[in-house]
């Protein structure tokens, strides 16, 4: 009895010691370069990325990329703290909107120097996307895609509503009134269907507002210094864009309020059109019996624009890394961007021009219909506060979508909150 008792006390300590030793013994296998790669992907995105990593590992025998599973919900918190504690990955996924913030904390390495040696040429990427990773003349990330806010149409329902021409294209005048007329026509023809499915809270109506704000020629939200920018949002245009989005919910009653799951509404054939990010393409494709078209968000105002962000590969700083290892990282980056077609399966638009032009990509259904959007997508502003301001935007704009405050008041509070955000 007594012996078992003592053993039970000692055992955990042994296990602990064993566990802490074992992690060291794995690193030196055949002098291959091992890279840790962190991503925030889940679901379909994750499996496509896993395939690409596996392909890379099989394509050569000098570099091995390990991809541990990281929970998406607190990915950036984990990334920032780990990199700051020098326990970060060698290469990681980061949104373009996040790069200035990581950079202003001194957590990212510029890639230009290595890119030249590896032969990764930034000119081969869609200009708009590369521009997003360029801070003070240096590139801090390699874009692999962009995921803009677009529009989906249920072909069967649209045909029933009589808004398709003989070629199956939607009949719509690309003007602010034309879009509303188009939706009202659907509403009239199919009164028990949802003409446009979108939530009236959170990220998606904010993205729509963003798109129309920039279509109306709105000035950048922030300007000037990365870490202490000025808020330069155009108040009048911001109000105008908010009025337009709100009219879809209230004045014209096109979108039913407070839809609990508007993805499901589209997926189950209750909605005729819907707007969200391109990542939905992969979901609709695997939905049996859903005949749909993916289209750019209509450009209703003076300029072409839509909301979008972009996944990029970044090289976090690491104290004891070697140049050899850093070159390996950029080789991996180069490989991933060349595999853009595999990545596009998830719905994203590849960032490399040659991939977008390739026959292989053009043959993919749906994607090529909206690939041109990459050239004019309005990425979040380059500022250390780009990502943090999302919640500020959503919390304020939600009050407009639920019609609790006037749009003037909402935008005024929004501007004040943004100013408070960057002041700290």
């Amino acid at each position, binding site marked *: 009895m007594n012996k078992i*008792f003592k053993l039970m*006390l000692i055992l*955990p300590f042994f296990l602990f010691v064993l566990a802490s030793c074992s992690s060291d013994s794995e690193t030196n296998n055949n002098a291959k370069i091992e890279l840790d790669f962190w991503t925030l992907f889940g679901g379909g995105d994750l499996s496509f990325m896993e395939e690409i990593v596996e392909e890379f590992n099989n394509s050569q025998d000098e570099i091995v990329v390990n991809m541990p599973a990281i929970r998406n919900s*607190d990915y950036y*918190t984990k990334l*920032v*703290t780990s990199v*700051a*504690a020098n326990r970060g990955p060698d290469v990681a996924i980061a949104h373009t909107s996040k790069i200035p913030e990581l950079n202003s*904390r001194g957590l990212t390495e510029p890639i230009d120097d290595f890119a030249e040696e590896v032969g990764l040429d930034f000119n081969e990427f869609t200009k708009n996307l590369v521009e997003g990773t360029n801070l003070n003349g240096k590139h801090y990330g390699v874009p692999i895609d962009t995921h803009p806010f677009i529009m989906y149409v249920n072909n069967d329902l649209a045909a029933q509503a009589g808004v398709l021409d003989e070629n199956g294209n939607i009949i719509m005048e690309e003007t602010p009134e034309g879009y509303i007329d188009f939706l009202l026509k659907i509403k009239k023809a199919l009164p028990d269907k949802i003409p446009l499915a979108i939530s*009236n*809270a*959170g990220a998606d109506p904010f993205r729509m507002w963003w798109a129309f704000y920039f279509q109306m020629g709105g000035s950048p939200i922030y300007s000037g210094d990365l870490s202490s920018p000025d808020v330069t949002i155009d108040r009048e245009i911001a109000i105008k864009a908010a009025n337009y989005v709100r009219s879809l919910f209230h004045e014209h009653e096109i979108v*039913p*309020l*407070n*839809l*609990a*799951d508007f993805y499901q509404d589209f997926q189950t054939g209750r909605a005729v059109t819907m707007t969200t990010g391109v990542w939905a393409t992969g979901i609709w494709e695997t939905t049996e019996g859903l005949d749909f078209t993916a289209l750019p968000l209509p450009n209703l105002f003076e300029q072409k624009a839509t909301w979008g962000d972009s996944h990029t590969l970044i090289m976090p700083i690491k104290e004891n890394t070697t140049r050899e290892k850093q070159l390996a990282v950029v080789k991996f980056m180069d490989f991933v961007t060349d595999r853009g077609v595999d990545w596009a399966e998830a719905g994203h638009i590849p960032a490399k021009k040659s991939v977008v032009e390739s026959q292989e990509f053009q043959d993919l259904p749906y994607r090529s219909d909206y690939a041109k959007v990459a050239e004019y997508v309005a990425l979040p502003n380059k500022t250390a506060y780009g990502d*943090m301001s999302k*919640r500020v935007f959503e*919390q*304020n704009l*939600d*009050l407009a979508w*639920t019609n*609790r405050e006037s749009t003037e008041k909402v935008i005024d509070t929004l501007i004040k909150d943004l100013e408070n*955000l960057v002041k*700290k």
Partner: protein
Amino acid sequence: MKKSLWKKDLYAGLFLLPFFLAYVIFTIFPIFKGLQMSFFNWSLIEKGEFTGFSQYIALFTDIDFWQSLWNTTLFVILSTPGMIILALLLALLANLNSKLKTLFRSAYFLPSILSVSVISFLAIFILQPYNGFLNNFIQLFGIDAEPFWLSNPVLAWVSIVGVTLWWTVGFNMILFLTALQDIPDHLYEAAEIDGATRWQMFKSITLPQLIPISRVILLLQVLSSFKVFAQILLITDGGPGTSTRPLIQYIYEMGFERYDLGYAASMSYVLFFILLVLSIIQIRAGGQGGRMI
């Protein structure tokens, strides 16, 4: 004899040691670290310059801080009476000598064992408009209404408080139930001999006997309601707008979304101070021999 006692203490100490270590590392140490943070400009990754009380002073002019503190207080005001009265009623029901006693006891306590994510998603599912259970149920009775339970600020509070009641009232019920069973039978027997009615017995025996436990429940309830966070985050995410955002969510947003740990820590300390004052008041008010806990 003495030696074996000493040995017993040693064994007990060894068993307590792992928990004690974890407790020091994850509870005691962070308490003091947090206090230190609240006096510094402290981002998620690095300690900045000493700011003295300036973050505490900044709090007083931060509308969002006051709004979220009010939201938390509102939740406490709305939920506490129900949490105590309903728990008492359920405990009385479960204490009745009926065949359904076991059913009552387990049925009311059952929701408490569910995790916050489960009850939150159940709530969203039940409360959602157009095809949610509750709205369909209302319409079944011919009421032609489509209330937006989670998107109207008033209804959102009703929903959150209702869900929280359903979820956690069972725990208080168990506390009341044990207290009910601790009331000596001879009191009732004596009352019965004196010809007291059931209501008189309840008023003069049961209720007074339950006062000590009620105080404990009130204290625990106020403390835990002030910490409300997870179910609101999951059900309304503080919305619509920020109208149901509790203080802890604002602290979380500041600390982990805006990486301003210093400011978040100073808000946490303000909350800590409020809870401390409330607890002292309650414990003091328990005076005249009514010991608590």
